[in-house]
């Protein structure tokens, strides 16, 4: 299990990194923590001519609190993010997802930004990102772009990133008052990947009416995605048992659910309802 030959570049500045990409765009893979890329290289499912290690770009390593939320650098590791009290105090969903994300050794190297760019259809962070409405920032020598997360995942392992673009940071907003969140995963017992998982964000006013709802799913389709029908069932409704039941019943509606040996389509559709219901209940349990 030795990767095929590649050239290695470890630029020290973002400009150098973008220059390398501009010159070798279609044959270069960007490596942040390497925890998804290196297994792919070893299996020779990926064989780029150049591996560009961006771990030396110090500017991409921090979590910065901004007036509107948090600016999370592309190189922030899973471990760093889930132990950032300022983030997790506002976003329980980050702590929930981090608890069972891969394992402690992988969490020490793998990155939040790398996980989004990798766009694994069963990745945990993509669902968290969709539930929290993050904005992805990418840059190339051609300029910078901001991409709302709901437009970011385009297909299996494919994100809206051009060959010459680098994901530099992600803006995580601050939650509106009255917001509760949660993430619930049914993990494959061997791989730990989501057979189905849901990230939920509910903003509920003093009268108990849901003003905004996000239900994000992963592990169930060609991309992580939002359960539009479940969100519609929740938004504007007084959140009681009946409203939750309606959201659970329609959570899989309109989604082209993938089946596999572990979970045929019908079973996975069932699991979508299960994780959606559990995540809603877990979030509601956090109301003050």
């Amino acid at each position, binding site marked *: *299990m*030795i*990767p*095929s*030959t*590649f*050239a*290695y*570049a*470890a630029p020290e500045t973002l400009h150098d990194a973008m*220059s*390398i990409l*501009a*010159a*070798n765009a279609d044959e*270069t893979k960007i490596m942040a923590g*390497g*925890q998804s890329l*290196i*297994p792919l*290289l*070893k299996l020779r499912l990926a064989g780029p001519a*150049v*591996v*560009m*290690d961006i*771990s030396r770009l110090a500017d991409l390593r921090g979590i910065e609190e901004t007036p509107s939320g948090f600016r999370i650098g592309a190189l922030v590791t899973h*471990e760093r993010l889930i132990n950032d009290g300022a983030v997790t105090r506002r976003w329980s969903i980050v702590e929930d997802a981090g*608890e069972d994300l*891969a*394992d*402690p*050794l*992988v969490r*020490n*190297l793998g990155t939040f930004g790398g996980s989004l760019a990798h766009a694994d259809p069963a990745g945990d962070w993509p669902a968290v990102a969709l539930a929290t409405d993050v904005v992805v920032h990418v840059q190339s020598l051609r300029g910078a772009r901001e991409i709302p997360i709901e437009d970011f995942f385009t297909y299996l392992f494919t994100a809206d990133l051009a060959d010459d673009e680098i994901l530099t940071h992600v803006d995580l907003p601050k939650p509106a008052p009255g917001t509760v969140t949660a993430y619930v995963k049914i993990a494959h017992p061997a791989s*730990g990947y989501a057979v189905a998982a849901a990230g939920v964000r509910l903003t509920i006013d003093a009268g108990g009416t849901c003003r905004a709802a996000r239900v994000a799913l992963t592990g169930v389709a060609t991309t992580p995605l939002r359960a539009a029908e479940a969100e519609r069932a929740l938004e504007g409704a007084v959140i009681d048992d009946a409203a939750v039941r309606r959201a659970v019943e329609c959570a899989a509606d309109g989604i082209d659910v993938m089946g596999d040996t572990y979970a045929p389509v019908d079973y996975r559709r069932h699991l979508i309802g299960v994780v959606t219901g559990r995540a809603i209940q877990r979030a509601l349990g956090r109301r003050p």
Partner: protein
Amino acid sequence: MSHHAVTTERSADAHRVAISYVLNGGPVSCEVDARTLLVHHLREERNLTGTHVGCDTSQCGACAVHVDGRAVKSCTVLAAQVHGCEVTTIEGVRGEGPDGLHPVQEALRRKHGLQCGFCTPGVVMTALNLLETDEPLTTAQVQHGLTGNICRCTGYQNIVDALVELSAAGPESVDE
């Protein structure tokens, strides 16, 4: 831009990479193939065979080493990535007891937390991170902390018992 952009400053041939790092407290400077995995570099080029290759698919943790103080799977790290870092392998872990065992190793021995011993170096490297806390660890915390290390002999219970007991004795019992 010309193709030379991919050539690092550290080596003329971009498929080879010159690295300098600290290994178990001593400086190392050498050249590696860009594609060489850290575990193979350690075992075959530095002759440190205490770091084991178990699954080679980033699951089992038998290859765990510390890079800048954090336990990572050395089968899923390129040797080139540790340039400028401090790497500690199981050979760099020792204590002041009669056999030179570190308290973590001593605790595993005392509680029979190993049988064949193949996973043990990785378990020790993970445990060292896990025990970096002032609070005593619960059984659940230790179990959760060991999810990246697979053991096929012990059923884990004795490993967990050893680490819970050690952490209950306080941080000074772990430090060497």
